[in-house]
């Protein structure tokens, strides 16, 4: 059977998180200002952060520098921050560093991973723009969050793995045991459903 995507909208509560035991130990090292925290972080999340950085920058040396910047940022921010999810905390820092670097150097590159992601996300933008009713980023995040929570776990993971983590379609298809075509089609339907949802909620993006 070939399944199509189907979307529905339900507002639900946030999921209560519990920190992984291993992550707790790593965070304790930060609070004790023990430099072993960096080694442990790199061992646990080095490959994840490198993957996120490479998906955006496409050049290993640039990605390595971003990952190093991530460890530096984590050291400065923990404490006082005690992340609920070390994965999400570190991933977000890496993502931000990589995007900043890409902004500075994008003129030299074309059709790289970041541009493809932006091109795809263009299809999520509501049809018309009204400068009198601009939606703030926080509200946009909230609307997208509600939409994501109402997806089934497979579609939610697929969307975030593609557009938050930046994973490639082929890699996602391999994990799902299906053709890249099907993944592409599913992502296309998800993007259009997000756009429809944003339009119905009166979201305007400038």
């Amino acid at each position, binding site marked *: *059977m070939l399944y199509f995507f189907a979307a529905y909208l339900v507002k639900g509560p946030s999921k209560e998180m519990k920190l992984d035991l291993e992550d707790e130990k790593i965070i304790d090292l930060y609070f004790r200002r023990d430099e072993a925290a960096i080694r442990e972080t790199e061992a646990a999340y080095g490959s994840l952060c490198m993957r996120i950085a490479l998906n955006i920058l496409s050049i290993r040396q640039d990605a390595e520098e971003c990952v190093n910047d991530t460890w530096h940022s984590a050291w400065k921010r923990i404490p006082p921050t005690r992340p609920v999810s070390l994965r999400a905390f570190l991933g977000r820092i890496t993502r931000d560093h990589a995007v900043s670097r890409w902004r500075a150097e994008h003129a030299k590159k074309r*059709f790289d991973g970041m541009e493809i992601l932006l091109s795809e996300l*263009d299809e999520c933008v509501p049809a018309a723009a009204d400068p009198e009713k601009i939606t703030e980023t926080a509200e946009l995040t909230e609307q997208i969050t509600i939409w994501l929570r109402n997806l089934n776990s497979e579609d939610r993971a697929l969307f*975030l793995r593609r557009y938050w983590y930046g994973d490639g379609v082929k890699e996602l298809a391999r994990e799902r045991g*299906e053709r890249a075509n099907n993944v592409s089609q599913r992502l296309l339907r998800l993007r259009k459903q997000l756009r429809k949802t944003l*339009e119905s909620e009166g979201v305007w993006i400038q």
Partner: protein
Amino acid sequence: MKSERVYEALSGLPEDLIEDAGTHVFRRRTIPWTRFGAVAAAAVLILGLGTWGLTRSGKGPVSSGGGTGGMGDSGGNDGASGAYTYMSYAGPVFPLTALGSSEGITAERHTEFDFSPYETSQGAREQDGEETAYDHYETETIVTDRYLMTNEGEADRTLTLLYPAALSLSKDAKLLPALSLDGAPVSTTLYAGPYAGGFVDMEGKRDGERWNLAGLRDWEAYKALLESGGYQTKALEDAPALEEPVTVYKVDNYVVAPTDAVNPTLLMSFSIDYARTTVLTYGSNGGSDDMENGICGRDVGGLHREWAIHPMYVILLGDDTTGGYELQGYRNGGCEPGDEIEITATVERYESTLGAFLRRIVTEQLETDNFGMLPLEETTLGTLISPELVYKCVAEMFASYSSTGETPAERYRNGMLEDLMGDSFVTTRIFYAAAEVTIPAGETVELAARMVKEASFDYFGMGTEKGYATNGYDLATVLGSTLQFTAQYASVRGLEAVELLENSFGFDPAAGVTEVRLDPAQEHYWLKLRRAEG
């Protein structure tokens, strides 16, 4: 820009969503049946890289040359090879052309770029019940493209003149050229060519499967599109007839029995021969295809949201269903056994042609809110032109790229017409504003086109020190034109709010050079600017 906002919004998502997605283990699927050829059920490992990157040698900007004051001659740079390639390219200002022979008619062209829209003005918006002020400016230029046309013959001449512009139906109508003759508005007929771009695969390659839209990215692409004249010919043709007979099932008037289901969904199942029937839908959210057993399902969900309920059309191209249809309600779009609920609906069956059906839904889309899929502003170009022209854009897209089209694109393989119709609205094509003009023998008339022109831009600002966004505008001197030009000039004004950067025209406002004479042998001119500081 806008997609950048969506990308940034994703950064603020709750950590539990990110954590779950990062640790999620996907259910592995077997490869589905294919519609054509051999059937296979084995899982296939796709070897691929986790990252990819395509590099393209970007062409750097070229410094302009310029005159010493007043009017100058354009610099000797080869604009075509020195122009910068933008991530979002708006297309050049095209020259006027004439249908048929314009022998004996000469034209002198004056093109003015007015950047006064970049000036900051005060706007106000309502937020949380209060009116708040904000600074507003546009990254647009007002282009006035004037042609002094002289009839050097001994008899009056009537020409059909065409003024091209690269636009989409979703754009604001202010971007459409308004033609005037000697200062008075002239009656204009609008034509539109087919989708001007192409498709790329998920890695951005043009030679792979066609999943993503890929617009024309630079001047060279427009040159290739227009220089032969074939595109203009297609623009002036009628819409494809699409006279294939179809059987339409309209599912409507849903009645959902009381339920706690969060997404009541109605599934319509029917038997077909996949080799003889193509299934199209409009208003469906999803479905399934069991090609081995010839069972097709199409569903419509969200039936708990009264404001979003709309009919579902199932359109069978080719043979009708072989055994009628069944309707079954489900708790959600999964339509899984065990999740059945009671939902009833009316089903109207009628026979039509594909073209007639598409015309009908195009008209409905323009007259209503299109089931919330394409809310259209009053000034949207697509709402202000004839429904027949909108239908032509949709019909050409279907005839070319649908699953039964000349060159099917994987993007439309599921037969959901709203995907194709939506793309017809947002994709760039060349519009031609046509006017009949009579030029008395021995006399000169002025034909002017005035329009707002959007800037070409990169998604993020250029790597300038302060990161200000850099915008670009460009002009084609003779591309696609049959006119005989005696001279061409270009000028800029409204520079108070902008800083003119590199340009191949030869403008040098600091030296007083704001008007230049162009070389018609140079096909393409460009300029870059940014908003002035302060």
